[in-house]
């Protein structure tokens, strides 16, 4: 058990990286508290797996340090770090039974046979594998195989962290949520820190207390699911999380608020330097916080998609598309529709990043 700190971490797969694009991880500073459930969320190729492999010790960072509590483990091998990792595709030892698979990490560490037996049975019970201990592991389904992979981490009592690299990729949809709730249950029971890598926002948001969003080799935001939803720090987070993603519209700014396509939207924004500099300014508002309102500005309705419990309305204004989420019973005006953005959930972004000092609530 340990707190995990990544300090000024950089990583490149190239021998001597020069340009920004050469770095798989540009600069990472993260601290993971002991016993937390974290998700590492980001699109494919953003460096999630690289980061995970650095924590487990399969890769050495090009720069920076990895700390477990106060100890610097940057130079240690995976076996000496006491970490466990579950991979995208189940890794099982074909020649062994389920029991043999679970006992393998303990036997490798020279544990006495009766201690191994007790531990294996305890973990098998936790994972509902107790009836299958004598079976050949290679004969089981993908979900049981993934449980075995996880079990090989759980049997070791000295594990600091269990990492999951998109572990549900090969699992049938109906088994996915069974396994996911099993994971949550095991997290509660064991209190082991878990880091869960995924590009699926549903998986990330349901599993984790804290989500780390990565984009192009950097962490763009760390927060609870609610924070990511309500206050995306970067337009990427706004796009990536939520379905449909956040509306991002070019805007201007002045003392009275934000100006979008000639319409002033009253917001308490600090104009300061931002307004004078020729930076790109955008406003971001989630489809959930766009409402029809007579005191708003005029739009045209381009398209309505009925998804059952809600409808997605595509609105058009000056060549921009604004998406809006309307409930089942919300009336959609047929003439002269006007909308407004909820000021509590409308953000202003400068060069992609949320502007500081801008009002939220």
């Amino acid at each position, binding site marked *: 058990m340990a707190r995990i700190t990544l300090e000024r971490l950089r990583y490149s797969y190239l021998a001597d990286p020069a340009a920004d694009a050469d770095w798989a991880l540009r600069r990472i500073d993260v601290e993971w508290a002991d016993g937390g459930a974290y998700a590492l969320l980001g699109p494919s190729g953003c460096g999630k797996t690289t980061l995970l492999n650095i924590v487990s010790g399969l890769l050495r960072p090009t720069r920076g340090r990895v700390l477990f509590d106060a100890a610097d483990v940057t130079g240690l091998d*995976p076996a000496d770090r006491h970490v466990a990792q579950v991979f995208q595709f189940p890794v099982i030892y074909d020649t062994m039974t389920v029991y043999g698979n679970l006992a393998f990490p303990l036997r490798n560490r020279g544990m006495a046979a009766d201690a191994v037996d007790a531990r294996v049975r305890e973990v098998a019970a936790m994972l509902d594998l107790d009836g299958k201990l004598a079976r050949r592991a290679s004969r089981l389904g993908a979900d049981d195989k993934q449980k075995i992979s996880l079990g090989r981490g759980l049997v070791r009592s000295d594990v600091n962290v269990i990492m999951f690299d998109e572990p549900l990729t090969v699992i049938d949809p109906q088994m996915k949520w069974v396994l996911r709730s099993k994971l949550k249950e095991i997290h509660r029971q064991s209190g082991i820190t878990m880091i869960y890598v995924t590009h699926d926002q549903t998986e990330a948001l349901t599993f984790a207390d804290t989500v780390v969003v990565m984009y192009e080799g950097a962490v763009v935001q760390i927060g609870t699911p609610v924070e990511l939803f309500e206050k995306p720090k970067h337009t990427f987070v706004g796009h990536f999380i939520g379905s449909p993603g956040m509306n991002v519209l070019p805007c201007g700014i002045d003392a009275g608020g934000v100006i979008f396509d000639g319409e002033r939207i009253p917001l308490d924004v600090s104009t300061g330097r931002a307004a004078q500099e020729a930076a790109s300014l955008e406003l971001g508002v989630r489809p959930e916080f766009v409402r029809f309102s007579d005191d708003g500005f005029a739009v045209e309705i381009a398209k309505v998609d009925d998804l059952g419990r809600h409808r997605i309305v595509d609105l058009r204004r000056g060549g921009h598309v604004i998406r809006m989420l309307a409930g089942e019973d919300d009336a959609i005006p047929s003439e002269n529709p006007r909308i407004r953005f909820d000021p509590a959930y409308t953000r202003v972004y400068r060069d992609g990043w949320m502007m500081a000092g801008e009002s939220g609530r």
Partner: protein
Amino acid sequence: MIGKTTNQRAWLLVAPVVALVAFNALIPMMTVVNYSFQETFGDNVFFFEGFKWYQQVLTSERFHASFGRQLVFTGVILAIEIPLGVAIALAMPRSGPWASVCLVLMALPLLIPWNVVGAMWNIFALPDIGLLGRAVNGMGIAYNFTQDPVSAWVTTVAMDVWHWTSLVVLLAYAGLCAIPDAYYQAAKIDGAGAWAVFRHIELPKMKRVLTIAILLRFMDSFMIYTEPFVLTGGGPGNTTTFLSIDLVKAALGQFDLGPAAAMSLIYFLIVLLVCYVFFTVVMRDEEK
């Protein structure tokens, strides 16, 4: 079945294959079967002899001796080539420029015609002018493969190992390259040592390719002819006369067509039986 039609013209489409197989396999083989039950003194005069030739071959000292030599030879080269091939494959780099260099080097012996391999080793091992022969004799070891049975055997085995270990290497290497990285990473995290990685990951994952390697090497070595024929001609005496060399001696040297035909069918059945049993055992284990 709905819409199923019977159309005899389909036979026309398979006719070329039937003809091809008939001419290159069935007809020659039936000729041999034909010979094996008859006696001929030429002039196309045949006498039916029943199982006489089979009995004669199966009870003959000569067949037992060459069959025994064949078994020992195949056993020895399998015992050397399979572990050696796996060891070399494990030592080869998996990526980078050296991987290609190693692969090319490994493929070279396989590209050399069999009789050339025999001729190469013949000259290489000659005790008076060959590099190997001179060197070994220079070290004070009496070595002469044309006169000494032990020397002849060592040379024949060394030649086969040199020629064919590469095949095992390439197959094993392909098997190793197909193992996903995650297995090695998981093993590292599980604290597995090099032996455990080999025993529980690499060896089981190579099982299929090694089965193929063993089958190919068994069949090829069991039917080996050209190389020992060029190297030793089956001698000194009969000490390196393996089954196929013996067969050719009987059929073309002595022109005993009946016994030779019976012998070749027995020979064929042995190879078929061993391959079948081996394959079934391995695959049944796989099913379990």
